[in-house]
């Protein structure tokens, strides 16, 4: 085999936009997600600048509403949900199981096009008219009062949902059917267990969101009372249907992140993951129980007390598998030979931030406290700790970990570590003050607030400035490394996973010969040496 790899087989635009190679599709997703991340980030920046003072001096309340809606919609549906599965997952799933591609390569390309179509429609809605409903599209506001771009935005989300479904379907079938000989379920890397669990949620929850948005559009177009109480409808039904998707969606965001962390913690402490089977089944448990907790978003909605108690109880239960994972990571670190490379710094940041986010989640699962904290900055801080501190940090960690495999280049370790530390610092400075703000009673989605909250808001905005710089840094040093970095060896981290046994970057169909798996994953302590297969 010549030195051709998947990046150099063909240079035409056509070869990129009609590719069925999972690696190239991952790159397509990667580029589009950077785009959406910075749009969502720009909205967040505007929000934080506005909140630096208690008055409305930057934007009007109407524009402010549109800004946080734009931030929410873009970040949730066009960054957080697709990020790890569609970029890192797309790239490494076939590599990790020793397959030459996903089970349905053309479907994979189609899901990227669907994703982009949905993204463009939503972006159009946001830029043309602006949507001010918040990312939740709560009825009857979205169906009766807000402008009609809300339906366009929802249509974009609806379309993007198909992309999620198809990706999840592809992963499930691939992981079931295309594992290399010898790769039993208990030899599967934990990242794949978590992606599998994520895919099950994608496949089972997303259609419910689709039907919800469809009913919302029906109500809006025909003025019928599905959710409008004047004509017999019930706005609570919207919330039930919406959160039946959107709470599991939180696990769509965090489970792949947890999966990445397993790989990183194990690799950079040179140890087998502690309690492999527990970690694996905890992903499945989180996915399963995650379907039964949606009502904790509705504690103050007027649902029955019994329902609230049940949902509160289930929310406590779902914390158990998450906690098991955290304990297993720390146990893996214990007496490990820890290397503080950039991916490991991200992983350690993840463990800290996710723990804070998870514990405050328990506060909110507690009925009495939740009534106090509902719709305050405490909630905002909590879910940003999970979704940004957890998910985005894990995404960056995974990106750095697999970067040599994806591009065949090494990045500047110095800048990568600096960015990781800055992200951790900036993140905490941004969001920790929001816990205090929330506990003191500052409501979310307000752009004018009493002056006594200003100290914490200024701290938070200052942290956001640091965070913005820290998030921009990888754009430069990774961008530089993609073209000018040192050549990466096939296995720069000396890791035992199958994906490291092919060259960096991998050839078009991944492996020259069908790999055969003969050992459990994460055998770092066996003086493992990778056999270069394509040398």
């Amino acid at each position, binding site marked *: 085999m010549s030195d051709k790899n998947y990046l150099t087989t063909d240079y035409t635009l056509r070869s990129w936009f009609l590719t069925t190679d999972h690696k190239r599709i991952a790159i397509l997703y990667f580029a589009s997600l950077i785009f959406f991340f910075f749009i969502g980030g720009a909205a967040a920046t505007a929000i934080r600048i506005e909140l630096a003072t208690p008055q409305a001096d930057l934007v009007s309340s109407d524009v402010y509403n549109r800004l946080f809606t734009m931030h929410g919609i873009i970040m949730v549906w066009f960054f957080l949900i697709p990020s790890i599965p569609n970029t890192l997952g797309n790239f490494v799933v076939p590599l990790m199981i020793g397959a030459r591609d996903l089970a349905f390569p053309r479907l994979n390309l189609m899901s990227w096009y669907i994703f982009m179509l949905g993204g463009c429609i939503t972006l159009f809605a946001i830029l043309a008219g602006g949507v001010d409903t918040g990312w939740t599209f709560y009825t009857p506001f979205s169906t009766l009062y807000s402008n009609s771009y809300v339906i366009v935005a929802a249509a974009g989300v609806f379309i993007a949902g198909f992309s999620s479904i198809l990706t*999840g379907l592809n992963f499930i079938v691939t992981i079931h059917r295309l594992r290399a000989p010898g790769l039993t379920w208990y030899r599967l890397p934990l990242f794949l267990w978590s992606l599998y669990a994520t895919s099950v949620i994608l496949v089972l929850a997303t259609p419910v969101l*689709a039907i919800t948005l469809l009913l919302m559009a029906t109500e809006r177009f025909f003025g019928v009372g599905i959710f409008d109480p004047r004509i017999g409808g019930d706005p609570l039904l919207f919330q039930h249907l919406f959160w039946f998707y959107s709470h599991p969606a939180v696990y769509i965001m965090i489970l792949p992140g947890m999966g990445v962390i397993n790989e990183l913690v194990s690799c950079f402490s040179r140890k087998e993951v502690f309690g492999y089977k527990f970690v694996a089944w905890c992903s499945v448990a989180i996915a399963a129980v995650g379907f039964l907790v949606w009502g904790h978003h509705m504690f103050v909605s007027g649902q029955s007390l019994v329902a609230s108690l049940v949902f509160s109880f289930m929310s406590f239960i779902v914390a158990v598998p998450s906690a098991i994972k955290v304990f297993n990571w720390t146990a893996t670190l214990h007496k490990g030979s820890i290397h503080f490379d950039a991916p490991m710094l991200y992983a350690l940041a993840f463990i800290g931030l996710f723990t804070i986010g998870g514990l405050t989640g328990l506060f909110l699962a507690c009925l009495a406290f939740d009534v106090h904290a509902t719709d305050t900055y405490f909630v905002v801080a909590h879910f940003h700790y999970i979704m940004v501190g957890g998910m985005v940090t894990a995404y960056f960690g995974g990106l750095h970990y697999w970067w040599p495999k994806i591009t065949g280049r090494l990045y500047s370790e110095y800048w990568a570590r600096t960015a990781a530390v800055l992200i951790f610092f900036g993140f905490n400075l941004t969001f920790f003050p929001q816990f205090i703000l929330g506990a003191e009673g500052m409501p979310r989605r307000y752009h004018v607030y009493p002056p006594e909250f200003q100290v914490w808001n200024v701290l938070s905005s200052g942290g956001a400035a640091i965070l913005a710089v820290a998030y921009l840094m990888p754009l430069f040093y990774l961008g530089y490394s993609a073209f000018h970095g040192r050549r990466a060896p096939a296995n720069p981290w000396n890791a035992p996973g199958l994906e490291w046994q092919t060259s960096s970057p991998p050839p078009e169909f991944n492996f*020259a010969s069908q790999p055969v798996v003969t050992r459990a994953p994460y055998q770092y302590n066996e003086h493992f040496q990778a056999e270069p297969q394509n040398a």
Partner: protein
Amino acid sequence: MPERSAFAPQYASIPHRDHTAELGMWVFIATEVLLFGGLVLAYFVYRHAFPQGFAAGSRHTEIVIGTANTAVLLTSSFLVAWAVEIFSPVTAKIVTWLLIAAACLGLVFIMLKGIEYSREYDEHLVPGIDFQLAGPKANGVQLFFVFYFVATAIHALHMLIGICLLITLAVICRKAPTTRHHTALHSAALYWHFVDVVWIFLFALIYLPGRSSS
């Protein structure tokens, strides 16, 4: 994608390839179950809230057309199953005709549905546009018809997709069918049967409530 002998193949064997495709269809059907599941949930919530309105609304539906459609759809499902069962290069011609017949029955279903819709339009039963029913049960009846129209329209959309699938397969299977086509046909048949099963649920939910007590 061209097969390159220099690389490990994607599938170990032909059955391996076929089972992979089939699993894909089953997972897809799982998402469809949840899609219709959301609708059926909404239906039950409102039927619980307006039992009399729903019974009254149900009595306004065209049960003759609904029953005829059920029969049409079951027959077409039977033809598709038959086609899958006898599929082989020798029987290509029969398979093609069976698929075309099934697709035609699908079109008959759509046509009957259209007649049904136009009658409901004439009776002013379309919510939002010209719903004209007053009285204490009006809200319930209107919600029933919201559910009726949304569910049957989505079902009809699935039918149209299925009809296109069947016709495409009929054209492909006409000449030199291979195991690959059998897999495609098998997956399409799974989809068609699923759409059929959804209809049976919808039939029970739409046409039957309130009929026995009247």
